[in-house]
């Protein structure tokens, strides 16, 4: 009897993968159908968000079962499919859990700013989440590539949502950089991999292991890392600040979480399951890209210090923090990979809080510049309190989750014998302290320059940012549980 019921749940679990991807799409369709009544439409968005999150969370108990689901054969010999593994589920959880939270926030923001075309906005938002989940659960490179491109296209109407010249130019940079890198570099890399190995499956230990010489591997690795432009490695990072013309909820969920995390997730996935850490550490295959990541990490932090526009500063901070995760992949050490995965979670929670705060400040006071925020902490204690917590997390201080990920990353550099990288990470954190910490500190302790906002932003905005800030703290305690399934696959001692 128990054997029978096991059979039943196994197929049920496999079905949960396409369901998780389909739910946001259904939500998007519901949004379109219910466009006449704004309240019902927004409720539909929220409900599908919660349902998606529930489905994804329900997958955690079976994460080790190796569940997979084949979609269809795309070309003879090439089929699309999903498969479940801890790293993918981690990313799926980030996207799925933060979606309803962001929807709540977006409802406040869009209504607070009286934005036009709100139905279109929620529709493409849902589409983008569906694409992110598709990427997270994809079972091979070609499936991942499809989701990757759909994500780019689905977010373009969101980036350009405000229209006008700024929207058009920002959208142009966004689309050209992301599509140029993916078509120009990532696609050839995937085709090349397919020709070398006859497969695009993700395989533990690396699909390419032992299939090509070190030179080819080095070139391929560079093609992958630059080709995954969503990870914003310099010189292909320009789309990220350009995307800041989008409404803040978009910046928050997509450009701090779903889109950029899709990038670093793809890089981690490629490093672990296409190359394999052992292959990467042999023959210095990853060393050139390690330096690119290190330079990006520091240069972006310096740019962030120099930007007065709050969203731009956060964007460059994102570029810098993403480089931490890419660096983790290039270190090719299991501990660093674990740190990279945890930093994916930590940065998601921290950065979405920061963007939520930026949007709340904008809605409450109309301010977008760092230099205008002096003394506003007294008017908006919740917002700036959350900002403070998130800052600690990004910098890597206790008692927030960022501390653990940075610690693991440092350990990883030592494990990989890259002392110079240890220094780079430390300098990067000091720079993060320099570009983020002054904002809440000055808001709380400096005298107000002019009459600032009279109070907090709408409650639908303050509630989500408090939730994500609390999540940063909660993850400090629960980090072990979150990362444990993934760490197990790395066979850490």
């Amino acid at each position, binding site marked *: 009897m128990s054997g029978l019921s096991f059979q039943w749940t196994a197929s049920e679990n496999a079905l949960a993968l396409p369901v998780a991807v389909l739910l946001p799409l259904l939500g998007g369709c519901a949004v379109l159908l219910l466009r006449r009544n704004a309240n019902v439409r927004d409720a539909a968005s929220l409900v599908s968000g919660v349902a998606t999150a529930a489905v994804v969370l329900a997958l955690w108990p079976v994460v080790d079962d190796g569940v997979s689901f084949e979609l269809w054969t795309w070309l003879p010999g090439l089929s699309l499919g999903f498969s479940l593994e801890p790293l993918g589920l981690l990313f799926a959880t980030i996207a799925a859990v933060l979606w309803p939270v962001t929807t709540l926030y977006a409802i406040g923001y869009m209504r607070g700013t009286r934005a036009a075309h709100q139905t279109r906005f929620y529709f493409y938002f849902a589409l983008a989440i569906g694409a992110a989940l598709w990427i997270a659960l994809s079972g091979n490179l070609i499936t991942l590539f499809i989701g990757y*491109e759909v994500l780019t296209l689905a977010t373009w109407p969101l980036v350009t949502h405000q229209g006008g010249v700024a929207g058009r130019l920002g959208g142009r940079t966004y689309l050209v950089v992301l599509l140029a890198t993916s078509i120009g570099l990532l696609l050839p890399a995937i085709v090349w991999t397919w020709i070398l190995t006859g497969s695009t499956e993700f395989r533990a230990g690396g699909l390419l292991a032992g299939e090509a010489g070190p030179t080819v591997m080095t070139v391929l690795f560079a093609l992958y890392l630059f080709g995954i432009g969503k990870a914003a490695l310099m010189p292909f990072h320009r789309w990220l600040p350009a995307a800041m013309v989008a409404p803040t909820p978009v910046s928050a969920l997509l450009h701090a979480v779903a889109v950029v995390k899709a990038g670093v997730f793809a890089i981690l996935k490629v490093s672990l399951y296409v190359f394999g850490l052992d292959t990467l550490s042999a023959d210095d295959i990853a060393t050139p890209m390690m330096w690119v990541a290190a330079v990006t990490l520091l240069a972006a932090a310096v740019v962030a210090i120099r930007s007065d526009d709050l969203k731009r500063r956060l964007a460059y901070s994102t570029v810098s923090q993403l480089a931490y995760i890419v660096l983790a992949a290039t270190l090719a050490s299991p501990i660093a990979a674990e740190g990279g995965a945890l930093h994916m979670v930590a940065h998601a929670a921290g950065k979405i809080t920061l963007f939520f705060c930026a949007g709340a400040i904008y809605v409450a006071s109309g301010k977008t510049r760092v230099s205008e925020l002096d003394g506003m902490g007294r008017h908006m204690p919740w917002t700036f309190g959350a900002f403070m917590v998130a800052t600690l997390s990004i910098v890597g201080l206790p008692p927030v989750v960022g501390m653990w990920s940075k610690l693991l990353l440092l350990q990883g550099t030592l494990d990989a014998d890259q002392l110079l990288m240890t220094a780079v990470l430390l300098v990067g954190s000091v720079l993060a302290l320099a570009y983020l910490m002054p904002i809440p500190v000055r808001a709380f302790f400096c005298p107000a320059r002019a009459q600032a906002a009279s109070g907090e932003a709408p409650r639908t905005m303050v509630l989500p940012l408090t939730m994500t800030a609390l999540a940063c703290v909660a993850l400090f305690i629960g980090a072990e549980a979150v990362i444990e399934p993934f760490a197990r696959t790395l066979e850490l001692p």
Partner: protein
Amino acid sequence: MTAQLPALQVIIPLLCAPFCVLLRSRTIAWLLFLAAAAGSLACAVVLAEQVSDGEVLSYSMGGWRAPYGIEYVISGFNTPVLLLVSTIAVIVAVYSRRSLAAEVDSKRIPLLYACFCLNLAGLLGIVATGDAFNAFVFLEIASLSSYALIAMGRRRRALLAAFQYLVVGSIGAIFILIGIGLAYGVTGTLNMADLAQRLPEIYGNRALSASVIFVFVGLAIKMAVFPLHSWLPDAYAEAPSAVSTFLAATSTKVAIYIFLRFAFTVFGATLVFGTLTLDRIGLLLACLAMVIGSGAACFQSDLKYLLAWSSVAQIGYIVAGFSLVTASGLEAAYLHVINHAVIKAALFGAAGLLLLRLGSVRLTDLAGFGRTMPWTFAAIVLAGLGLVGIPLTAGFVSKWALAMALIEDGQGLVLAVMLVSSLLALVYVGRVVEIGWFREPSPVIAASAVTATSATSRSSTAERLPRSMTVATWTLVLLSLYFGIDATLPATLAESAATALLGSGG
């Protein structure tokens, strides 16, 4: 009955042509063309079914046995093209009725349909025949009828475009004729299979080399391979929308097919690509076409010209594919023949909808059309993504296949050129999308929206376009998406075509 199918599929449209002229009724002419197209499609489907197991069908015209009589050959290498041409013909037939009624003088419409029937018969004849001279005859039937079709365009410039095409096309035809004549001179036969048997004995013969060059230069004109493409942009852009849609999808594709037929199954790959190194020339020209075609498309100010220039570039992809002279290269070429035909037909179809509604397809007049014509806009975006080669569109499948063939053959440089060309495609498609999406509606759009509202008293987003045209366009768009999502059908067809071509070449 089924034994006669290879001939029937050509004869049906050929016979419909005089009736279109005699009966002089627009509706009957349209019905005849629709029937001819549907009949050809039915024949093509049955034929494809019959040869799907690798069999080769041979049909002797009038009972005269090959190599003396005219032979029709149906095999894996031409069924994909037969299916493609007849399918597009059916869709265009549905599309053409309202489109032509709006663009062409009503007295000329029966004549136009006669030309359409002749054109269809010519194209199918080229594909089905196994006789070199017969291929030339059908090539001329197709070309002459297309000159007339293009000349029916709405502007006076169409006459110039048709005349230009006539001059260039006739030069091409003469080249082909001289080439075939020379081959006949040195072998004494015109049957393709017979030629293929006798030619290897005289490899090295100067006249034979000259024959090869003449045939291929002539065909390169018909294919619009860069730098012999000059006729194409004007011809496609000035022709009536239904004609543009049909020709863009079929005429150059059929020329490409007959090129491959001559190269692989008549003269032989060793002579054409080995001795005369047409493969290297082909790759070079393909690269130039990809960059220059896409580059020129970026600077066009008229949507139909933009699409026509994009065709020049897309032909470059196909030439690059078969110039590799490998199975995977040929497969990629065939795949792109099918996929590009569907995508480009969809785009020209959508352009026809815009023309019908707005009276112009100049990009400045299209500003903001995404708001008033959302469905047409969506069709252009979806098909345009295919040109760029975004996953889940047909264009991606061809690009994947071509990239694979290029990497396999170690042609990194050509691959880079192809990717640059795709990015240029992103630029020109992106330009149209930006104009439609962001710009404030142009006076033309605003006026059309007002008339739409007052005429139907519905919301201004109601498009009020003929349903037949919208359905035909969306059929093509959905087909291009289907071939992107599940590429099994075109990929199988392309694979069997490549095997058949390489197999019979020896």
